[in-house]
């Protein structure tokens, strides 16, 4: 019991001890006397009996209370309370400083509230639509990507007369500009008539203003040089440019010394001056090179293509409505200029879309212009006159016999000669001058003139155009072809546009099919057919383009049962085949292969060659080199 009593009394003693120790943490320890413990004897009268219980052994458990008698701890904040950051930054090329317009010219009525409001100033932005630039997919440097992301929306640049444009661009045109601007490699392949030239000039202008481009070379076909000049003055009124032409010494001066930021040159001069361009010592280099009608470099080994690729440049843009004119290799060869080594020469067709994605933009009119007037194409099957038919049958029969007699000495040029002779008979009987097409044309033109409209007519040759000019005099025809001097051509176009008595413009495919804006004409006649529908499309789109307000009626003359109808059938089959392979996004337009040209006639003769008979070379007859009974354009 004593032990129990001790245990019982010891428990309350432990509590004050804990309290003391806690107290000791807050104050100096005080001397406290230990408590007294006494053991009292237990007295009782009861008889003590014993009983045997299986008692458990007594055990003592001792708890030791650890006294928290150490000094209190203080925890300090492990991190710094200071908030600090690091910065990174980039400076960009200094944009051209163009004097802002005077406030009196541009301040809208809302501007008054700037002064009137207090304490806040209020402004009213004019535009809500925003076309923003995005970095090019191949832009690697963060600085370069940020520079594009930080450019203002295009619409903002055109407000407040900061950059004046003759017309407000369509939305798809702004998107085209936003596509071109960030890209060092770009192929703008919009369908003809959507304004590739305008989009390019505005993009160039904005790059010049931003200080991102300081020198630019524009290369275009010779007939289009005046057109580019006009467009540059219209859409880039503040861009000084020079046309590189003249003597060798003068051209050298222009290439190396002329201060204008933009230079304009045709493909022929470019090819002529290739050595100068490729010479590092001459120091001719450009921030941007633009190839218009870039299908001119579709043949990789041609001098034109070599000259274009030899230009030292930072950015390469190509413009064409027909990125694939004859075969998929055309696109590959375009990219040899646009982005060298990006599309290998033997790339399978199926891989082309992946490789060109991000660098190629193509829109067709139906996609972007909801209210574009329709283009109605009709094939006018015109029978040959009896004299024409007789002459034609005789010429074809004799021609085929002649070709077969050539045996393996036959060449494609022999076949061409026959094709061209027959096509010319389809136009006019060489002896009587009769023409089933002309009869039909006169009837159609009478309607055109009666309605006060204008028409364009295309032919492969100059001679039929000159004949037509004489026989259609009542419609005030004008001529625009290779025999018309370049300096006289702009005046022809102006007269055609302005003179109400001029209802007909006679053009050759070679001279009039590219780059011209003739949207004031509503009728197009293809008097004879070109080998390649792409060229025909370009011709048609001289009239069916932006600015056209009325439907355009296209009449393609075809004489049934002749070489014309056979060529048309071949080209149509190929067009359908390529549409299935590539799709509608890139409309193919195909020439004819050598095999197909031979297949136009029932020929047993074939040229002797060492290679396989499956020749992939596409045939593009060159009118100037083949002069059979007519004059090439």
């Amino acid at each position: 019991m004593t032990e129990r009593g001790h245990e019982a009394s010891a428990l309350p003693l432990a509590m004050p001890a804990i309290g003391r120790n806690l107290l000791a943490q807050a104050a100096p320890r005080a001397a406290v006397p230990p408590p007294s413990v006494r053991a009292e004897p237990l007295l009782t009268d009861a008889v003590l009996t014993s009983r045997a219980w299986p008692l458990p052994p007594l055990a003592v458990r001792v708890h030791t209370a650890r006294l928290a008698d150490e000094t209190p701890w203080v925890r300090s904040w492990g991190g710094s309370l200071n908030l600090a950051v690091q910065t990174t930054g980039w400076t960009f090329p200094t944009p051209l400083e163009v004097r802002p317009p005077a406030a009196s010219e541009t301040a809208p009525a809302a501007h008054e509230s700037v002064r009137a409001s207090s304490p806040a100033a209020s402004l009213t932005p004019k535009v809500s639509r925003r076309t923003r630039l995005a970095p090019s997919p191949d832009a690697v440097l963060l600085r370069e990507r940020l520079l594009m992301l930080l450019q203002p929306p295009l619409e903002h640049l055109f407000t407040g007369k900061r950059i004046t444009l003759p017309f407000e661009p369509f939305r798809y045109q702004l998107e085209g500009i936003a596509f071109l601007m960030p890209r060092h490699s770009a192929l703008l392949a919009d369908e003809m008539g959507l304004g590739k030239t305008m989009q390019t000039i505005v993009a160039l202008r904005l790059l010049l203003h931003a200080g991102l481009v300081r020198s630019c070379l524009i290369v275009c076909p010779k007939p289009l040089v005046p057109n580019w000049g006009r467009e540059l003055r219209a859409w880039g009124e503040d861009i000084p440019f020079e046309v590189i032409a003249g003597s060798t010494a003068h051209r050298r001066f222009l290439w190396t010394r002329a201060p204008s930021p933009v230079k304009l040159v045709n493909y022929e001069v470019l090819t002529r001056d290739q050595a100068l361009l490729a010479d590092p010592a001459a120091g001719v280099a450009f921030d941007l090179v633009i190839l218009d009608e870039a299908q001119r470099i579709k043949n990789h080994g041609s001098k034109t293509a070599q000259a274009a690729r030899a230009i030292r440049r930072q950015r390469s843009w190509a413009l064409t409505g027909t990125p694939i004119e004859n075969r998929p290799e055309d696109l590959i060869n375009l990219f040899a200029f646009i982005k060298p080594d990006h599309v290998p020469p033997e790339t399978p067709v199926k891989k082309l879309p992946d490789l060109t994605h991000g660098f190629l933009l193509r829109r067709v009119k139906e996609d972007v212009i909801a209210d574009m007037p329709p283009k109605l194409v009709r094939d006018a099957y015109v029978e040959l006159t009896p004299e024409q038919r007789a002459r034609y049958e005789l010429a074809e029969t004799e021609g085929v016999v002649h070709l077969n007699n050539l045996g393996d000495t036959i060449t494609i040029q022999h076949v061409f000669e026959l094709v061209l002779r027959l096509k010319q008979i389809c136009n006019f009987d060489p002896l009587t001058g009769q023409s089933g097409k002309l009869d039909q044309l006169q009837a159609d033109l009478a309607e055109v003139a009666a309605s006060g409209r204008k028409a364009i007519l295309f032919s492969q040759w100059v001679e039929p155009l000159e004949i037509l000019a004489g026989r259609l005099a009542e419609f005030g025809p004008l001529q625009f072809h290779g025999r018309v001097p370049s300096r006289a051509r702009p005046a022809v176009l102006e007269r055609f546009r302005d003179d109400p008595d001029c209802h007909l413009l006679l053009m050759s495919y070679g001279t009039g099919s590219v780059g011209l804006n003739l949207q004031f004409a509503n009728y197009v006649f293809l008097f004879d057919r070109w080998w390649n529908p792409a060229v025909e499309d370009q011709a048609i789109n001289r009239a069916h383009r932006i600015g056209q307000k009325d439907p355009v009626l296209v009449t393609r003359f075809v004489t049934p049962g002749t070489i014309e109808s056979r060529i048309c059938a071949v080209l149509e089959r190929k067009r359908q085949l390529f549409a299935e392979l590539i799709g509608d996004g890139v409309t193919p337009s195909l020439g004819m292969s050598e095999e197909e040209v031979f297949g136009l006639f029932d020929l047993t003769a074939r040229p002797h060659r060492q290679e396989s008979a499956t020749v992939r070379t596409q045939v593009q007859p060159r009118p100037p080199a083949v002069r059979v009974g007519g004059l090439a354009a």
Partner: protein
Amino acid sequence: MEAALHLGFLAVVHDPQGYQGGLLVTNGWGRPLEFRLTTPLQPTRVHQILYGATLRPHLFADVLGKALLDKAATPLSLILVNAAELLELRRHTAWPVGWVQSTAPTPEAQGPAADGPERFSVEVHAAFPDDRHALARHLESLAGSDLLEPFDRIREALTEARKRTAA
């Protein structure tokens, strides 16, 4: 010859990585001349407790904004900011500072017939009332400009920078 107009657009954006500042310097046409950004800053719970209501002004103006202005290489004509807290930046700079904010009505209040151009206002620090006149003088030449739009560019640029850093 009058000095060219250089506008500084200073924004602070907040995302899960923290607060990040961006400064875009443009010419009068809105073309970029310079861009700076800060590293993201994530204040802790302790910062929030200790700084209390003063945390955001301190973070925006004294830390992020000041760091950007200290490093800016282009002399500015004025500074436009996207948050009221950044007006405190005025105490660190001699250039006038204006807070640009949209005054467009809410979509509910706007209704389908009120589809007009966006309106906005510019406010200045109460301790620097003269800034109002300085800003108004500069903003005269910017009539028709959307002063809120550059902040979108800053946000996109900060996002791009973060993506490129993470890649």
